């Protein structure tokens, strides 16, 4: 992003006094010196009307209002402000701080001179007779503030943090999972450190941050159960999450101009028949912040048409005269804008969780990740697992092999720096992998099956096997040239089970069947599903208290593209799939059965979560008779289902007494739809149809 702003200071708040904010803004604006600075006031859903855009603009700040659901999150508030920041240096602070006159001139210049730092500032508390009211009346008396203020008793990172824009982008802002407040600053600073920044507490008499006195808010916040839970949740993130790249699943308030997190790099040549399925599997990722860089290495088939048919701006297509696989992959690296590159082959498929799971294991000092893969037979769909072992000099010494190329997720900068060896026509991935280890880079095993490799007759590994083995042999020779026999023996002695991290689902490959190509499998929903997805608009709409919960998907068949649309929403849906020559029946669903199955499923969930429940009664209420007159029963949930403009309410009543549902039958204006029994019959929930019940009632 090109801008002549040197420094952006963001204040996040909700329902906070305007006078304090005006003082904070004024002191910051006065402290930029010769630097070009801006102050962004990020109002995260205030509803008390105290702060107005006019007032903030008059004070010289940019005012950003974000509509929320009423919940407060300091992390999200700050990110919402940073999303509009234009400065090279980004600073977070609070609404009740004032800064001495040279503060941001020094902070900004220090970071412009050395972007490898993360600057922090300790807060000095003003005494009770220096609230914002007194500061506003008396003005900024810095010498007095210095004399009467005291360092905050809790030594820490709060109050002010400053980093270079590139660092903020790399770690993707503050963690938006965090609620309320508490822990955001230490989490952010720790992550900046993991990403390479040195933490520097500014100790300069000309840089001071004073906290204007006000009644403590923390005690008030902590009294609510929700707030205490939020603070504990935040602590859990700070202490237990070793990653530094966050908001991977969704970055609600991204920095303007931020590059995609991942570039999926595909080099292709005359593989149009497979490329469409390969791209579809990428589009179905649960982590959606990616671009797909496709380098067409001189294809003469309809590759370009296939790519363009997706009409997705995240897909970037580059054609070049045929120059070989290494050159094509290097071109992809050159064109990639993502921080990380996921290598993907034009004939292979990603499992939907690939990018997310590989990002989740990247921590300090880890430059990328890899995982296991399965081979699938293009003709039969037969699956064969290839587990991955850890990737170290020791395991290379043992076999010379590298993790499957199509499972790599590595820093794009490494690919750009080391590059694929264009003198090799095959085995280039193995060569690059060993060169990366020789260079000192480290990679983590993600413990997942992340790729499905298509076995077909046109593969490079089949057509160019001799060249590939020669390249692999020589690469290994190069790697081990300096290894003595004695040391090689020692490394062999260290090998063992620890080299083979456990892989989820390695004993359960059937769960990968839904992700095979359409021509190999039948797939359908295992049960009616509530999905928030555009593709479900034609189906039954479910609401609760007027809020849209989702659309009810029947147990219908669905294509790989349909499935990708669902998984791209971040949900891994419950799918039944079988090979086309298998025994699993392909049962098209229907709406009537869907509602029945959904209600049954919902009742089962209610009984499961309320272990003492004897039964759940589902009552259907007509629009005209909203008052059922059965308040004495325990209402658990009400849902409104709309199908083809017809709306019907269903309510779930808990009945501790197994026979209580009979009372409902005699209640006026009610229509018992069904009854589900738990207890001894939990293993086989029995449904009594409304028709049967009606008969008994008579």
């Amino acid at each position, binding site marked *: 992003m090109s801008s002549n702003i040197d420094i952006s200071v963001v204040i996040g708040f909700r329902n906070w006094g305007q006078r304090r904010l005006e003082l904070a803004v004024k002191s910051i604006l006065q402290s930029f010196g010769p630097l070009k600075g801006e102050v962004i006031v990020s109002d995260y859903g205030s509803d008390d009307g105290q702060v107005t855009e006019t007032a903030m603009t008059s004070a010289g700040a940019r005012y950003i209002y974000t509509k929320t659901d009423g919940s407060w999150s300091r992390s999200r508030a700050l990110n919402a402000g940073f999303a509009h920041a234009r400065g090279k240096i980004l600073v977070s602070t609070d609404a009740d701080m004032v800064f001495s006159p040279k503060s941001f001139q020094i902070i900004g210049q220090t970071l412009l001179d050395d972007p490898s730092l993360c600057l922090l500032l300790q807060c000095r508390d003003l005494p009770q007779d220096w609230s914002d009211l007194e500061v506003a009346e008396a003005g900024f008396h810095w010498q007095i503030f210095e004399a009467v203020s005291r360092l905050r008793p809790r030594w820490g990172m709060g109050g002010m943090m400053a980093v270079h824009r590139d660092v903020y982008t790399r770690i993707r802002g503050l963690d938006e999972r965090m609620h309320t407040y508490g822990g955001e600053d230490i989490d952010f600073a720790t992550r900046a450190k993991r990403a390479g920044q040195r933490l520097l507490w500014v100790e300069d008499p000309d840089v001071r941050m004073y906290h204007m006195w006000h009644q403590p808010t923390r005690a008030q916040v902590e009294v609510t159960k929700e707030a205490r839970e939020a603070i504990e949740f935040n602590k859990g993130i700070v202490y237990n999450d070793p990653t530094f790249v966050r908001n991977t699943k969704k970055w609600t308030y991204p920095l303007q101009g931020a590059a995609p997190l991942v570039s999926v790099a595909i080099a292709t040549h005359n593989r149009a028949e497979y490329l469409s399925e390969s791209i579809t599997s990428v589009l179905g990722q649960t982590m959606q912040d990616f671009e797909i860089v496709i380098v067409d290495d001189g294809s003469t088939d309809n590759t370009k048409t296939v790519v363009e048919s997706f009409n997705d701006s995240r897909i970037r297509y580059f054609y070049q005269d045929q120059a070989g696989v290494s050159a094509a992959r290097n071109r992809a690296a050159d064109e990639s804008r993502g921080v990380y590159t996921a290598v993907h082959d034009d004939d292979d498929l990603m499992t939907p969780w690939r990018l997310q799971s590989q990002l989740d294991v990247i921590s300090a000092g880890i430059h990328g990740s890899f995982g296991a893969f399965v081979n699938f037979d293009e003709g039969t769909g037969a699956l064969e697992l290839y587990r991955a072992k850890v990737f170290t000099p020791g395991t290379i010494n043992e076999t010379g092999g590298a993790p499957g190329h199509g499972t790599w997720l590595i820093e794009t900068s490494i690919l750009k720096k080391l590059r694929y060896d264009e003198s090799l026509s095959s085995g280039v991935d193995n060569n690059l992998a060993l060169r990366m280890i*020789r260079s000192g880079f480290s990679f983590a095993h993600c413990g997942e099956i992340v790729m499905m490799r298509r076995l077909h007759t046109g593969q490079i590994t089949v057509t160019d096997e001799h060249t590939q083995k020669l390249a692999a042999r020589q690469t290994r020779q190069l790697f081990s040239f300096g290894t003595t026999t004695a040391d090689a023996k020692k490394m062999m002695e260290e090998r063992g089970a620890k080299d083979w991290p456990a892989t989820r689902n390695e004993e359960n490959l059937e769960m990968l069947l839904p992700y095979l190509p359409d021509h190999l499998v039948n797939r359908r929903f295992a049960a009616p599903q509530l999905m928030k997805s555009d593709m479900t608009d034609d189906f039954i709409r479910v609401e609760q208290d007027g809020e849209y919960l989702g659309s009810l998907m029947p147990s219908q068949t669905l294509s790989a593209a349909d499935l990708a649309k669902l998984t791209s929403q971040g949900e891994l849906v419950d799918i039944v799939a079988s090979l086309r020559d298998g025994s699993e029946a392909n049962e098209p669903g229907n709406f009537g059965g869907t509602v029945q199955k959904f209600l049954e499923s919902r009742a089962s969930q209610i009984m499961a979560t309320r272990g003492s429940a004897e039964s759940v009664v589902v009552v259907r209420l007509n629009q005209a008779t909203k008052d059922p007159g059965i308040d004495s029963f325990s209402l658990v949930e009400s849902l409104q289902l709309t199908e083809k403009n017809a709306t019907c309410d269903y309510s779930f009543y808990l009945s501790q007494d197994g026979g209580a549902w009979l009372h409902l039958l005699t209640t006026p204006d009610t229509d018992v739809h069904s009854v589900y029994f738990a207890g001894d019959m939990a293993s086989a929930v029995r449904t009594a149809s409304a028709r049967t019940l009606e008969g008994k009632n008579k």
Partner: protein
Amino acid sequence: MIIKWSNELHGPAGFTVTPEDYDGTPRLFQLLMDAAPKVRHWDRQAVAAFLTFGKSFGGPVTMPHKFSPAVSNAIKAMALPVQLDLQPIEYYPKALPIGERRLHVIVDEQVPESLLGPQNQRDGFIEVLRSDLNNGALRRINGLTLGSNAWVHSTGSALESWYPYIAVACLFAEDLDASTIVLPSEVETDSPLWLPLCNLLATARLGLEVAE
């Protein structure tokens, strides 16, 4: 930062670091070379460690061996505004290596004929090759060629990008009888970092020049 010297089983030797609370995470945790110096003077070792990993130092730094207060002070001055607490410091006077040669640092170019067929023993060279494309070391009477991942550590400004190579030269200077490290002529000496760098090397009894 805790810095150790290690000899890896698969061949190379060099520094391995462990970041601590106030350190940044370095790009790589190792500086690897396909040969180990026959002699390592602890002062020069400390200088080399700082030149390679100094951009990540913050707070306490533990070198593999005791080194002089002069080196410590020069490192601290270069690290400002970041405060460092360097240890272990050797307060008992120790001898410093004596060298005679001018040690030319060669990176990404052919070693000049004048150095390959020297008419005198005044000039030596150290050629640092990319370790991902080369493996091993070749010793000559006046020079050493070796593979190293110094090139991956090479980032930052024009002068700073030479720090990892200077670090390798610093480690082998005693083996190669050098008292001055000579950088290629294109290296600019008008950087504000040049004098502090010269001062740092001087504390380990090494000069720094650019070739004419």
